[in-house]
């Protein structure tokens, strides 16, 4: 490597470090004693290591429960979105034709709708079903976001599977449904996993629907974190600690899966 290249690499590495430093600062702050988060002037490194800020997670029962709510809602909405999207995506990519193309268009148009436009009438709908403040209401709302996404992603992944595979299974005596479940699904497992990750993330990170549809029981973690208050202002120490707890597992998980995630993300955009 020549020195010029090395310099560019060093420069880029420095910019990258700067880029991730806000998150690093949040993690460092979470290990300071709670009142140090508000120190004037602020110091970057903790002067004293403390798990003080994390204690809110243990003391305030609402916090662990909201994590559980987020997880359950994300699992419910992911399962529902993937199981609705899979047959639809298979119909689109295997059989083409106008219903398939029309469906892709619907999925695309759904993506252009402002969330708030669905959220207002959705709230009334859930009230009439007596579902407000339940996991199901939030999960259903999240599926309206993740279903179009899942259909687009899965249609792309399934397109790569040769139709001869289904034909062969049928010659061997499988029904069409059995061919889809026993032959196609295992072959497309990688793509299905990526799709599920995206659906999970969409739900895990969602705020507006959860804010509207929950009040006490089903509050998800983003809502609880955003409402942290201390005596004077926001409770910044707890915010940094719980924010770290909420985001770090997802970040670590996705670093393991990064190749697949990048493939899904760029496929959604590069292939349209």
């Amino acid at each position, binding site marked *: 490597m020549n020195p010029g290249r090395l310099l560019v690499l060093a420069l880029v590495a420095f910019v990258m470090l700067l880029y*991730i430093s806000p998150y690093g600062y949040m993690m460092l702050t979470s290990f300071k004693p709670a009142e140090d988060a508000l120190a004037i002037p602020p110091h970057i490194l903790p002067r004293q290591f403390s798990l003080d800020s994390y204690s809110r997670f243990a003391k305030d029962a609402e916090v662990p429960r909201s994590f559980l709510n987020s997880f359950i809602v994300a699992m419910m909405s992911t399962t529902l979105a993937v199981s609705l999207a899979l047959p639809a995506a298979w*119909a689109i990519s295997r059989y083409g034709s106008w219903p398939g193309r029309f469906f892709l268009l619907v999925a695309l148009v759904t993506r252009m709708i402002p969330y708030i436009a669905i959220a207002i009438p959705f709230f009334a709908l859930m009230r009439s079903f007596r579902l407000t403040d339940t996991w199901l209401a939030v999960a259903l709302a999240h599926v309206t976001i993740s279903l179009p996404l899942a259909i687009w992603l899965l249609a792309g992944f399934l397109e790569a599977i040769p139709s001869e595979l289904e034909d062969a299974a049928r010659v061997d005596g499988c029904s069409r449904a059995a061919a889809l479940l026993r032959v196609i699904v295992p072959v497309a497992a990688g793509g299905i996993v990526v799709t599920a990750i995206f659906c999970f993330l969409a739900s895990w990170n969602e705020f507006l629907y959860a804010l509207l549809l929950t009040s006490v029981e089903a509050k998800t973690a983003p809502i609880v974190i955003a409402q942290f208050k201390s005596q004077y202002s926001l409770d910044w120490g707890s915010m940094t600690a719980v924010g770290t707890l909420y985001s770090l597992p997802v970040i670590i998980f996705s670093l393991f899966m990064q190749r697949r995630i990048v493939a899904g993300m760029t496929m959604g955009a590069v292939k349209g």
Partner: protein
Amino acid sequence: MSRSDRRYVLLLLAPATVFLAVFVAWPLLNLFRDSFYEVGLMTPGERSFVGLENFQRALTSSRVGGAALRTLAYTGIVLTAEFTLGFGVALLFNSLGRRSELLRTIFLFPLMIPPIVAGLLWRFLLIDNFGIVNHILRQLGLLASTSDIAWLGDRDIVLFSVALPDIWLTTSFVTLVLYTGLQNIPASLLEAARIDGAGALQLFRYVTLPLLRPVIAVVLFIRGIDAARAFDIIWVQTEGGPRFASEVLSMHIYRNMIRYGDVGFASAIAVLFLLAMLALSLLAFFSIWRPQALRGDA
């Protein structure tokens, strides 16, 4: 396609269709209906028809107009910053080739951070007296005092400040997609142009840019829609303040619904917002996207 094939296709599409009909189409129909009524939040049964009054109010309200302009400005700020930074980094990664893998991994990770955590984190960084940003600026001698810039308190700059976490989170997305697009440009094509005597700048202008055009269009399209309907990341920073200086349309609609309980009026603004989004996206879709170029092997 045989008749049984057709029936099978419809059967496969049925579950998703039913879901979208019940939980997207039906609510949207209700939204359109409610926009012609006066409806309270807690008494959805008692409605009175008011014709176009809600729309008239919305179109003449200066707060709605202001929120619409801020939504456009916010989208413009976010798109400009993300595209410039994202494209620059994508070109850097591309010139580094394989060696950029680790860097790309690092660059990926803000995408996984929940927007509300990012919003709150930046609010924490930007606080005027004990925030780390102003502290560092003062240490560098750029500020005389840490209260010189009130990032989230100054009405003139707040719209730029609230865009920072959004830019921080999603520049990576722009970079990754553009990087993939750059990697998909056949090396032979660039080589041929180089042999014909094209310089680096000409290569970029006449080969790279035209070939990348569809990818650029998609990125701008996706990010534009997401920025225009942003809610959470701004809400947790300012709730639209100070004095509505960072209130975008989604937020103003939310306020009318929840704080003022005026569902009919909120619905009318949402209908206008929805129609404007569809019109602008379809315009963008047909003028710059050129879908047929994409369906190939982009």
